[in-house]
């Protein structure tokens, strides 16, 4: 019976991964498509190549901390139905936001949900399980979220400034276009790689905790779960990513190729940096931080502030609503 419930938790984690793919393709490739450097199909194709690479190589760096450090890892292995409730709640909220065209952070939804699950078990204790929320770790993660857009803006600002002067020296227009186009595509690939490394860890963290205690697999559990998460991301990217791709590419500010390059590379460097320390940070925050960082050079004139305000509101509401949704759903499944 526990294996069947664990399977439901895996399906829920896969659903979260699908959400990330549909929501975050816009973040990785929106700038490239918005700048008309590559087509939608090429953007998705590059995602398919680079997401599994990042997931299988580095996905475990975030997967373990997400699954076992916020609430005790053995909690989800003994109560996989709570893990399933948490992941379904997170996925549901992100699906609603994606449908409205807002690129919200799945990391915030997942972490909010994990806290909601932990609190539900604290308030409604189950026989044989104990729960607590690691508030210190949670504060560290929230600090990383706050630091993400600023770090990305800083990197993007530096990259823009550093590449502006050498590019001005290129006189031939064809050569300049080639250099810029190639830079944007390569930085987009790097974003896709870091999505595989960081986002997959977030999506599959709960599934990892479920499988870890139950010994449900043989072989390299983390890499297999990373591949499962990568496939979820890719399918999300293939089936439901067009709307957020257009929001990021055209809705925040009109993007030139150099802006797109600086924003993407700044975001990728930031996410990769935080991945090394096991922090589940948002590619959404990073890329929008990067775009804003480049926007500062132009005096913020190009940045759509109304759109930015809407996105910031979504960031605040996402963890809160996910927490409440999970708390309610976890309470219901605990009654069964």
């Amino acid at each position: 019976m526990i294996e069947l419930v664990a399977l439901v938790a895996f399906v829920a984690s896969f659903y979260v991964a699908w959400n990330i793919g549909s929501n975050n393709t816009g973040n990785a490739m929106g700038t490239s498509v918005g700048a008309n450097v590559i087509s939608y199909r090429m953007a998705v194709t590059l995602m398919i190549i680079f997401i599994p690479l990042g997931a299988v190589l580095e996905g475990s760096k975030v997967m373990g901390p997400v699954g076992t450090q916020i609430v005790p890892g053995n909690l989800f292995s003994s109560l996989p139905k709570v893990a399933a409730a948490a992941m379904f709640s997170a996925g549901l909220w992100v699906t609603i936001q994606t449908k409205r065209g807002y690129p919200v952070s799945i990391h915030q939804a997942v972490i909010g949900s994990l806290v909601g699950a932990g609190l539900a078990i604290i308030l409604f204790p189950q026989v044989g399980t104990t729960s607590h929320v690691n508030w210190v770790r949670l504060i560290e993660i929230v600090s990383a979220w706050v630091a993400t857009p600023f770090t990305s803006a800083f990197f993007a600002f530096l990259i823009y400034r550093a590449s502006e002067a050498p590019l001005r020296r290129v006189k031939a227009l064809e050569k300049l276009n080639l250099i810029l186009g190639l830079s944007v595509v390569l930085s987009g690939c790097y974003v896709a790689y870091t999505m595989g490394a960081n986002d997959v860890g977030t999506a599959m963290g709960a599934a990892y905790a479920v499988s870890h205690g139950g010994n449900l697999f043989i072989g390299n559990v983390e890499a297999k779960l990373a591949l499962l998460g990568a496939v979820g991301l890719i399918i999300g990217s293939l089936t439901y990513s067009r709307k957020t791709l257009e929001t990021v590419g055209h809705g925040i500010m009109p993007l030139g190729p150099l802006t797109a390059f600086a924003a993407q590379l700044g975001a990728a460097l930031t996410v990769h940096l935080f991945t090394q320390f096991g922090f589940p940070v948002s590619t959404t925050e990073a890329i929008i931080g990067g775009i804003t960082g480049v926007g500062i050079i132009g005096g913020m004139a190009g940045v759509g502030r109304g759109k930015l305000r809407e996105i910031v509101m979504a960031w605040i509401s996402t963890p809160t609503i996910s927490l409440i949704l999970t708390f309610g759903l976890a309470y219901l499944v605990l009654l069964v």
Partner: protein
Amino acid sequence: MTFEYWQITYVLAVLIGLLIGWISDPWFGAAFIWSCVIVVEVLGFQKKKRLEKGRKA
């Protein structure tokens, strides 16, 4: 919502890749996915070229 052929092909390819990776090694699954993408894109490129040649002729 409608999907194009390439999208359906890629969805099938990644699902088969997942199956391969799950029962053997995840790297084999990833390698299968990459191979499929390369084959589809190369074939698509060749077809596009052929069509362009035909239009010119």
